[in-house]
């Protein structure tokens, strides 16, 4: 195809050819996320009006597609420790590592990854391994196989929330007691749809900052093993993104960060994160679902795991587990939601997608 072939919408000639060539260049810029919103808008308009440009765009996408198949592996879990050791070795005066408030986080991660060679004490992961072995034998010998499997998944789900919770605490330590916060704007809408005048502002971004800034290394902990629709995030560089690209990448809902917020040290019993809120399953308000329903993550709506700001994870069979029996799925007295509602006080748990 020559430059002139694009000229369905303009005159021929060198100047026009340069213009068309620059449009083709823009296609690559677009594929690499290099365009500003205005430039992107102009390109989309050009694509709409010029079928040949759109065809070239398709070719470029097919050309680049195979590159996605080459995923780089995750770094070994000990890499951060080795880097920190190397810094200390390079500079004996290094104050950075050994006095760090974050050091214990590395230790927690090390526990998570069960590096037995270091001879650590009995960890929660060990407990989980024992539970898994017991669950395995239960599968072999006990009638009611699915029940045993559900319980094993329930334990693994609680472990996920524990890991995320440690990330929340680490974030808070580094950010003067604040909870993880993405780009959420006040007055936005945390559910998609509705009037365009109120912009969508993802509450999921607030959870994603834990991955984005390395407080959590493994995206799989955001996926509840009982959640059949879930799909773990597989991406080379989570740092380059702002949010989970697919809602299925996160099985858990968390405190609406658009409303009044508690301080970490002031509301230890406040539920912060739990299995998905059934009222907003699928990213929209389902008014047919009872507010007393349990999360849909665990088969049969048996209950949900809930993580509180103080660090405790518990399995609950009712959503009324906030302060004074507060329902964690809703704002007291509010029956319909369009995504603009926020909790009434810092002690009102309201967990949303």
């Amino acid at each position, binding site marked *: 195809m020559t430059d002139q072939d694009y000229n369905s919408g303009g005159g021929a000639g060198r100047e026009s050819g340069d213009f068309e060539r620059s449009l083709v260049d823009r296609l690559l810029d677009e594929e690499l996320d290099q365009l500003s919103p205005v430039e992107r808008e102009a390109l989309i308009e050009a694509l709409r009006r010029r079928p040949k440009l759109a065809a070239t765009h398709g*070719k470029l996408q097919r050309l680049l597609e195979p590159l996605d198949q080459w995923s780089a592996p995750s770094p070994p879990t000990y890499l951060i420790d080795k880097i920190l050791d190397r810094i200390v070795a390079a500079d004996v005066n290094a104050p950075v590592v050994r006095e760090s408030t974050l050091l214990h986080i590395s230790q927690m991660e090390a526990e998570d990854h069960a590096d037995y060679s270091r001879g650590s004490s009995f960890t929660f992961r060990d407990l989980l391994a024992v539970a898994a072995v017991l669950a395995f034998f239960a599968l072999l010998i006990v009638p009611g196989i699915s029940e045993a499997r559900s319980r094993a998944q329930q334990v693994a789900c609680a472990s996920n929330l524990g890991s995320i919770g440690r990330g929340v605490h680490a974030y808070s330590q580094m*950010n003067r007691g604040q909870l993880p916060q993405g780009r959420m704007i006040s007055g936005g809408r945390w559910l998609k749809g509705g009037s365009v005048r109120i912009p969508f502002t993802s509450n999921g971004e607030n959870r994603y900052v834990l991955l984005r800034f390395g407080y959590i290394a493994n995206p799989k902990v955001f996926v509840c093993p009982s959640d059949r629709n879930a799909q773990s995030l597989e991406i080379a560089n989570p740092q380059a993104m702002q949010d989970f690209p697919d809602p299925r990448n996160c099985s858990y809902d968390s405190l609406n960060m658009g409303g009044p917020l508690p301080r970490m040290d002031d509301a230890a019993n406040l539920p912060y994160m739990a299995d998905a809120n059934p009222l907003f399953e699928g990213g929209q308000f389902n008014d047919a679902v009872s507010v007393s329903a349990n999360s849909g993550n665990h088969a049969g709506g048996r209950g949900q795991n809930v993580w509180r700001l103080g660090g405790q994870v518990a399995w609950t069979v009712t959503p009324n587990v906030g302060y004074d029996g507060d329902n964690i799925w809703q704002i007291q007295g509010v029956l319909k939601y369009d995504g603009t509602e926020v909790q009434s006080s810092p002690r009102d748990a309201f967990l949303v997608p």
Partner: protein
Amino acid sequence: MKTPTDEQLMAEHLNHRPDAFELLVRRHSAELYRFVYRFTNSSVAAEDVAQEAFAQAYLSADKFDPSRKFRPWLFTIAANKARDWLRKRSRRSEVALDARIDGGDESGRTYADLLADSPDDSLPEIELEEQRKVVRRIVDAMPEFLREVLILAYYHRMPYREIAEVLDVPVGTVKSRLHSAVGHFGTAYREMIDFEQEAIESRRAKVEWD
């Protein structure tokens, strides 16, 4: 309260806040590891270079210009160390090293040329695992100056001006190299897929003949 930026953390590190640099390590180590892994095609190099790069960044922190971005500065250090690693291993030919000196792959076709004369039909489907191996082989065999720009732009979505900083070249050169790299990849991929297909068909023909 917002999460501190990388540059704020560097400033706090220079102000002797003890944990600021550690947070930078935690933020960037995984991405840096993956960059070096793809650039060198070696997990050993990725591990070594990530350690070396952070150690040097730590020791040279006072030379960091706080008006610039931290991420390209860190990647500059890592890219230099990765190139040193490749040279030590003599994995690259002299031709590739020399080619880096000029502004672009003048002999190669840009992606625009490739798109202009490639047919509309899709390439034959091959197994995903096979596709992965082919991509890895092609990128690994690319001249260094094309490979690095492709990895930074495609896999790390780094803005052009930051890539320009990492590679110490003008933004225009980044773009022309990128166009060459995509053209290079597209041509090589089609050739290799055609080759694989021919091999599969000749094997199949041999089986039928036997």
